[in-house]
C-alpha cells in the first residue's frame, strides 16, 4: 500500500508509517500504514476498541505513538508543531465546548487561541455558516445534540484548517440532525479539505468518501477506493473482514 519514505511532501495531506501504540500490555495500534492525498475523504470503519480514536488522537498530536512515524500537512506529529495544529481541525463525540458560555463566547475564545485577528468577526462568520447565528448568545448547555455537533463544526473550522479529523460525528444524532451534519460535511469536503472520518454508520460513511478502510484490532484490515466498494454489499464485506481479522 505504501511505497516511499515519509517526508514533508506537500502532495500528501496525511502519511502514516508503522504506527504502533501501547497502553501498558495492551497494543491499541499494531502497525498502521496509509497515505491520504490532499482533498481526499477517508471513511474509517471498525468495531469498538479497534484503535480508530487512538489513531485520530495521534494524528492530531494529542497522543504520542509508541513507534512509527506520521506526517500531517507535511509536519511530523511527534514534534506537534504549532503550524501543524493550525492545519488540523477535530470534531469528536465530545464537543470541546464550554457549557456555560454562549456559541459566540466559545468560538471567539477558540479563535483567539488560534491567533486569529478579528476573532469576533470570524466567530460570527462560522456560527452563521452552521446556521446557529439566531442562537449565538444562548448558553451552549441549552443546545440539543445536533446543535452541539454543528457548533463543534464551527469550532473545528474557525481557523480554516486544511485537514479535518471526524471521530464518530454522527453519534447520538437523530435523522434530521444527521442530514444537516451530512450537508455541512459535504460542504467542507467540497472546499477541498482532506477529511478522515471514523464512523459505525455504513451509509453515512460511504456516501461521501473517496477511500474506505476498516480497522480491526489496531491494524488496517481493508483499504479500498470508494469506487471499488459496493454499498449494498459493504456490510457483509465489513463483517467478514472483522471476523477474519479477529481470528488472527
Amino acid at each position: 500500500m505504501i511505497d516511499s519514505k515519509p517526508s514533508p511532501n506537500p502532495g500528501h495531506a496525511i502519511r502514516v508509517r508503522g504506527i504502533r501504540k501501547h497502553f501498558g500490555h495492551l497494543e491499541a495500534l499494531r502497525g498502521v500504514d496509509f497515505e491520504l492525498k490532499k482533498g481526499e475523504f477517508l471513511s474509517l470503519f471498525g468495531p469498538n476498541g479497534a484503535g480508530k480514536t487512538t489513531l485520530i488522537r495521534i494524528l492530531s498530536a494529542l497522543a504520542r505513538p509508541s513507534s512509527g512515524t506520521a506526517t500531517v500537512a507535511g509536519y511530523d506529529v511527534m514534534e506537534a508543531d504549532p503550524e501543524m495544529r493550525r492545519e488540523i481541525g477535530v470534531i469528536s463525540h465530545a464537543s470541546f465546548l464550554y457549557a456555560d458560555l454562549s456559541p459566540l463566547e466559545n468560538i471567539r475564545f477558540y479563535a483567539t487561541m488560534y491567533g486569529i485577528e478579528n476573532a469576533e468577526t470570524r466567530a460570527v462568520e462560522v456560527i452563521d455558516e452552521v446556521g446557529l447565528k439566531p442562537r449565538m448568545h444562548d448558553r451552549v448547555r441549552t443546545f440539543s445534540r445536533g446543535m452541539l455537533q454543528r457548533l463543534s463544526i464551527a469550532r473545528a473550522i474557525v481557523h480554516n484548517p486544511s485537514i479535518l479529523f471526524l471521530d464518530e460525528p454522527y453519534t447520538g444524532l437523530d435523522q434530521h440532525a444527521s442530514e444537516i451534519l451530512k450537508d455541512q460535511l459535504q460542504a467542507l469536503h467540497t472546499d477541498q479539505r482532506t477529511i478522515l472520518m471514523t464512523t459505525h454508520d455504513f451509509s453515512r460513511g460511504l456516501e461521501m468518501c473517496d477511500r474506505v478502510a476498516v480497522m480491526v484490532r489496531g491494524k488496517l484490515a481493508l483499504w479500498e477506493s470508494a469506487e471499488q466498494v459496493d454499498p449494498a454489499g459493504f456490510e457483509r464485506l465489513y463483517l467478514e473482514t472483522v471476523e477474519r481479522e479477529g481470528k488472527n
Partner: protein
Amino acid sequence: MNLYLSQVMAIIRKDFVTEFKTRELFSSMFVFAVLVMLIFIFSINLSVVKANQVGPGVLWVAILFAGTLGLNRSFTLEKENGCLQGLMLAPVDRSAIFFGKMLSNLAFLLIMEAFLLPVFMIFFNVELGSHWAPLLAVILMGTLGFSALGTLLSSLSSNLKTREIMLPILLYPLMVPIAIGSVRLTGQILDGKSLADMMNWVGLILCFDIIFISASIMTIDHILEE
C-alpha cells in the same frame, strides 16, 4: 509573545465570564471560608486567648480550605465536554494554559479574600490601623504560591476519579512552608511589627512561590499530555 499574552488573557477572560454567569465558585468559596471561621470562633474563648495569636491561623486555614474548593473546580471545568483537549489542539504553549488558569485562580482567591478580611476583622475584633499594606502584601505572596501549586496539582488530580480527595492530600503537605510563613507574618503584622523585621519569612514565602511556579512550568507539558 503577543499571541502568548492574548492566549493567557483569553483563558482568564473565559474563566471570569463563566464565573459571572454561574456564580458557583465565588459564592461557595466565600460561604465555606466564613463557616470555617465561625466554627473556630465558637470553639475559641477569645477572652482567654489573644485574637492576634489565633486569628492568623484561622484566617489562613479558612483561605486554604475554601481555596481548595475553587482549585478543585478549576480543571474539572476544563474536563467537561473535553474542553481541555480542545485547548490542547490549538497552537497554544502549555505554559500559557497554566498561567491562564493560575492567574484566574489567583484573582478568584484574592477577590474572596477581599470579602473575607472584613469578616475576619469583625469576628476577631482586629484593628489593622496602618498595617493594611504589609498584610495585603503577605496575603498576595501566600496566595500566589497557593494558586500556583494548587493549579498544577489540580491539573494533575483532574484525571483521577478521586480528585476531590487527592487534591487536598497532595496540596496541603506541600503548602506547609508557605502556610507557616503566612501565618507567622500575619501574626507579627497584627502585633505591629514592620515587614523589615520579618524578612526571613518573606524570603521563605517568595522562594517557595518561585519554586512552585518554576516547577509548574517545567512539568505542565508532561502533566497535560495524555
